[in-house]
């Protein structure tokens, strides 16, 4: 990893990972309205249970409270946000302005994403911006942090020191290309990766093996994406309707085999089994738990997955 003894950002997530702990991050989707209480209520379930909380940015192209605003609510509550930013909704000026703004208010982690196409969302006719793509966004945040310069080249007064994250999807074709894409993101300047939700463990093991062989997992931290299935319907929906998602038939069969009323418990059990394997897997440095609209279950999952208490690194 870095030869520098200092931190790049000093975020809690960076400290936990750099100290060699198995990281555990969560996720929170901002509300479709102005209710701060809703954010705070969800956040309470995650407090002390995860190292950082991803705040999604108009996820699935549906308008929600902006990710920076919900991130600030978390900072005020003493939680550490992982501020997500998609390339779909902002040009490079707005992006850089928002990065300066959130940093000023205490945000130290960012996840740089392309963003789902607007066609999926509640404004399907919106014009996608995509002034820069996720690779270029990573490089821009790194340049702002390490060179203290805006993308346009001018100096930044008090540059934002951001721990830079990005996504990786080992389950989208072409499979051969995915480790190379990860390599490009590392070259662009990514510090940590959170993967797409993993269900096809065979495919993921293969991806990590190649990434290990290429030396990629020594150059950035990999957090394996886990989403517990709440129901058979959810599993089928994810298999059939969500692009880039790989849900094997065995996953669905196992949920179908659960006793009546115990499907969700089975889903959690499966997630915990995955987390146990990730803890032992070379090249995996943590888990990103995306418990979609299930934040109140996170403490129970964390307990069952034996990732508590969370480490405190000074």
């Amino acid at each position, binding site marked *: 990893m870095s030869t520098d003894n200092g931190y790049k950002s000093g975020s809690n997530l960076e400290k936990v990972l750099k100290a060699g702990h198995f990281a555990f991050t969560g996720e929170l989707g901002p509300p479709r309205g102005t209710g701060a209480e809703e954010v705070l209520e969800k956040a309470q379930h995650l407090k002390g249970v995860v190292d950082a909380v991803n705040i999604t940015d108009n996820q699935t192209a549906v308008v929600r409270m902006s990710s920076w605003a919900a991130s600030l609510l978390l900072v005020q509550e003493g939680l550490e946000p992982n501020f997500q930013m998609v390339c*779909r909704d902002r040009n490079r000026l707005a992006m850089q302005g928002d990065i300066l703004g959130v940093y000023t208010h205490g945000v130290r982690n960012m996840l740089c994403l392309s963003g789902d196409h607007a066609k999926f969302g509640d404004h399907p006719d919106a014009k996608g911006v995509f002034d820069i793509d996720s690779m270029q966004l990573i490089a821009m945040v790194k340049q702002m942090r390490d060179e203290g310069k805006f993308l346009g080249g001018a100096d930044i007064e008090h540059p934002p020191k951001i721990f830079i994250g990005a996504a990786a999807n080992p389950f989208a074709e072409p499979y051969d290309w995915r480790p190379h894409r990860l390599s490009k993101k590392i070259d662009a300047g990514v510090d940590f990766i959170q993967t797409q939700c993993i269900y096809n463990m065979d495919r993921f093991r293969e991806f990590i093996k190649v990434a290990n062989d290429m030396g990629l997992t020594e150059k950035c931290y990999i957090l394996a994406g886990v989403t517990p299935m709440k129901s058979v319907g959810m599993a089928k929906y994810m298999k059939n309707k969500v692009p880039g998602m790989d849900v094997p038939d065995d996953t669905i069969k196992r949920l179908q085999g659960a006793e009546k009323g115990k499907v969700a418990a089975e889903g959690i059990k499966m997630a915990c089994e995955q987390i146990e394997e990730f803890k032992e897997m070379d090249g995996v440095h943590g888990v990103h738990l995306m418990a979609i609209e299930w934040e109140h279950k996170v403490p129970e999952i964390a307990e069952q997955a034996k990732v508590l208490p969370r480490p405190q690194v000074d």
Partner: protein
Amino acid sequence: MIVAKRKPFDEIMELLQDYKKVLTVGCGTCVAVCLAGGEKEVAVLNSELDMARKLADNPIELGSTTLERQCDREYLDELASKVDEYDALLSMACGVGIQFLAERYPEKPVLPAVDTSGLAVNQSVGFYEERCRSCQQCVLGWTGGICPVTMCAKGLYNGPCGGTNLGSCEIDPEQPCAWYMIHERLAKQGRIDNIKNICSAVGWKDTVPRTLIQPGYKKPEEEGA
């Protein structure tokens, strides 16, 4: 070529509702080839308009002419003797031709009869697919001859994103993923290294009206200067 599609008939009717004598001007080049605005389409549109306006008790007198090209001043000049006879001109050229006609005859209302949809290939008779967004900085040399600016729904320069779905784009199973195709073609050609380096943020050239002067040429007002 530039492709276009005739506007919905009701929209054309609305555009023309206040005019009694209109000259429909076709274009003999791109829009004629793509079956949107050539001589034949002018004749069809005029007969439909004539009938509809009669039925609406608001008859219209329609003239028709089809120029070789509406994007070339010398062909537009051919209309000089006719234009004064009409209340308005209805152009069936692409957006470029419509504007040039309006610029040449600024005293006349010039109305569009087609919607221009881009630079496309002729896949079959009447079937066209967009291939170029005229970004003015062609990347086809390293993308295997497949344009990500046009063919990727997000216009990514460092694809594919995580939304590829069995080789299709996340927006539609019928839409191939441009970056999947780029990867496949480069892999077959042994040129995959082409896309291993990061493509830096693009300096967009299409955010202002562009002019183009070929080497050795000047704007007319600069001639002889």
